[in-house]
């Protein structure tokens, strides 16, 4: 079982924290375990252990993989786990994480969306265009327009797929080609559209002040902690199977520790010429999208139906679920999330150019989601998987870059990691007790 395990607010925070041990604890102790009645912390851990043994590994493989990668690269280059590099890694991986979070929706539905790489390009170019002197839109209006345009693209593709009953692979492959054309057309002769708006450029490169970082972290941990406490004590009150109070407190403590560790790392001066400190904005954006999509997938009817369709579309149809509407919405959300990724991409480069390779981006997004533990066959996966997978891909890229390896070597290693992830998943599933 890799999803719908109830509230897991530690996940989002832990994901962004390079302190991987904390992340590992957070995920193995996924709350709301649907297992025999447990009274004490020890019983609870035993149940978790049994669940992992039975093939329900959750995010354990990817977290273990991240640990392995960290140890490996750290032993090769002492700079890998330095504060500066860790924060850099998160900024570099943000685009993959966001794109992969978009791709999770079609994957959960048992479909695929190949177009989101270039749809993100459209998101970037629309923002850049509207910010030009000749249009002079305010930053928020430009971003809003870009996101609406991307959502519209998803709506169009989703409608074609569901209404005409065409395979999503082909429709979005057409999208991959078509939106690349549109992007090149919009870029025009020069091939580059610079962005001069400070707010948009700060999305990827800007940081909170160290003091603000602390305040934001405390607010997030307090909100997540309160939510966890309320939800789990409500379960205990209604007499349902619930983790013991000691575990709830431990989880909240772990969230706090992860938050403190993360802010300490981010507040370390990582600048070369000028001091750079504080939590990057982009981390908050990724966290926000992660929280929103996790909520949507776990707590709403829409999310439940996405899983149901991916698991057994016929059963979902008989249950009276409107398959076309849910599928179309899924593709719309994928493109919308791609729009966010595109704006971050443009913001990091402070421009949009023909160098944006949407084909590679989308394949990395699929790889990130799968490495994180999302199934290509539908019905299994989480937004969290996309984030963890994105970190893995960014870590490989970054670590091998530090060692001076070529792009060729990076591709091969990423391929091997992808294959390993899928193999671990398949083997674990085969051993699962039925």
């Amino acid at each position, binding site marked *: 079982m890799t999803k*719908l395990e109830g509230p897991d607010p530690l996940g989002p925070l832990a994901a962004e924290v390079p302190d991987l041990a904390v992340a590992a604890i957070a995920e193995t102790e996924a709350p*709301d375990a649907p297992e025999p009645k447990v009274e004490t912390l020890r019983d609870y851990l035993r149940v978790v252990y049994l669940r992992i043994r039975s093939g329900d590994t959750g995010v354990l493989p990817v977290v273990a993989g991240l640990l392995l990668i960290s140890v490996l690269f750290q032993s090769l280059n002492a700079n890998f786990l330095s504060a500066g590099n860790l924060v850099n890694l998160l900024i570099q991986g943000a685009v993959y994480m966001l794109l992969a979070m978009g791709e999770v929706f079609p994957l959960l539905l048992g479909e695929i969306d190949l177009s989101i790489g270039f749809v993100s390009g459209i998101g970037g170019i629309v923002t850049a265009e509207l910010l030009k002197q000749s249009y002079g839109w305010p930053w928020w209006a430009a971003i809003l327009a870009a996101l609406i345009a991307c959502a519209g693209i998803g709506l169009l593709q989703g409608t074609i797929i569901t209404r005409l009953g065409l395979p999503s692979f082909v429709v979005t492959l057409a999208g991959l080609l078509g939106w690349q054309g549109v992007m090149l057309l919009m870029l025009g002769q020069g091939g580059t559209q610079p962005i001069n708006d400070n707010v948009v450029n700060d999305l990827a490169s800007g940081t909170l002040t160290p003091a603000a970082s602390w305040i934001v972290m405390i607010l997030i941990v307090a909100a997540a902690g309160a939510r966890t406490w309320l939800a789990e004590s409500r379960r205990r009150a209604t007499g349902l199977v619930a983790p013991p109070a000691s575990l709830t407190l431990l989880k909240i403590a772990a969230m706090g520790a992860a938050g403190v560790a993360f802010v300490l790392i981010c507040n370390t001066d990582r600048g070369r010429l000028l001091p750079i400190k504080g939590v990057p904005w982009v981390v908050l954006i990724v966290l926000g999208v992660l929280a929103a999509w996790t909520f949507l997938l776990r707590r709403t009817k829409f999310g*439940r139906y996405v899983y149901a369709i991916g698991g057994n579309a016929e059963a979902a149809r008989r249950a009276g679920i409107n398959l076309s509407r849910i599928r179309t919405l899924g593709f719309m959300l994928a493109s919308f999330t791609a729009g966010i990724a595109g704006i971050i991409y443009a913001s990091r480069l402070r421009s949009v150019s023909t160098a944006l390779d949407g084909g590679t981006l989308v394949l990395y997004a699929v790889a990130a989601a799968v490495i994180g533990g999302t199934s290509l066959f539908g019905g299994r996966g989480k937004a969290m998987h996309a984030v963890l997978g994105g970190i893995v891909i960014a870590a490989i890229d970054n670590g091998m870059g530090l060692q001076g390896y070529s792009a060729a070597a990076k591709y091969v290693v990423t391929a091997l990691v992808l294959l390993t992830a899928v193999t671990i998943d398949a083997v674990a599933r085969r051993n699962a007790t039925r």
Partner: protein
Amino acid sequence: MSTEVAPIEAEPRSSAEASGAATGEPLLRLRGLSKSFGAVHALVDINLDVPAGQVTALAGDNGAGKSVLIKCISGIHSPDSGEIQWEGKPVHIRSPREAAALGIETVHQDLALCDNLDIVQNMFLGRERVRHLTLAEEEMETAAGQTLSSLAVTTVRSVRQLVASLSGGQRQSVAIAKAVLWNSRLVIMDEPTAALGVAQTAMVLTLVRRLADRGLAVLLVSHNMNDVFEVADRVAVLRLGHLVAVERAADIDAQVVVDLMTTGTSTRATQPKPAEPRTADDQA
């Protein structure tokens, strides 16, 4: 079939005090139901009563029209002619949704469950309870747990178990409990024990009996005679689209049903209770 099929009184073992039985009106009554697919007469002039609180078995060989008949009742097919009465009132069931609105649930042979969802999620699929725009998980979990324990389905470890990890009998139980959870009045089951082992078959049949004892009408499609005589109060036999007999299960035995299924008549001596009217013998 020209004669009226008299509703048969509830047998002692069923506590059929549901609305239909109490008023003498069967919950579901089919009158002259016919359905053709091109030149094929799948159903011809079917008259059948399905009373509440009883298990009505629908027996018949392959191609006898069992599936077509239940599809007509559950809204997947619409009959060409004839009438469906629900609690004495004529109704038109045009879709599974309309059938569900009346209180007709079908437990399909190929189990419409999602493997990747847990028991609670499957039982509430399509009708989730929502509070403040979010799923009311605790409420649904409690209700699902109560329904399962009221049906004495105790073999599942936890209602938060994934359906993928359940045995065939447990899955069948979940599918049946789903029908009870939604307060169905009539549960149609298509070969519920087809793929099950001995112990699991017994478990599911006990559950079927329990549904009828709670006052639900059960229409059980099966060509396993052991199952039929294990749980059914009444046996309706279909042959080549014709309803050839509707009998009290106590009045006939498996051999008679097999005769009826294959030839449409039976000359075998059975032990009819003298006071009971033989309802459909004149058909043959």
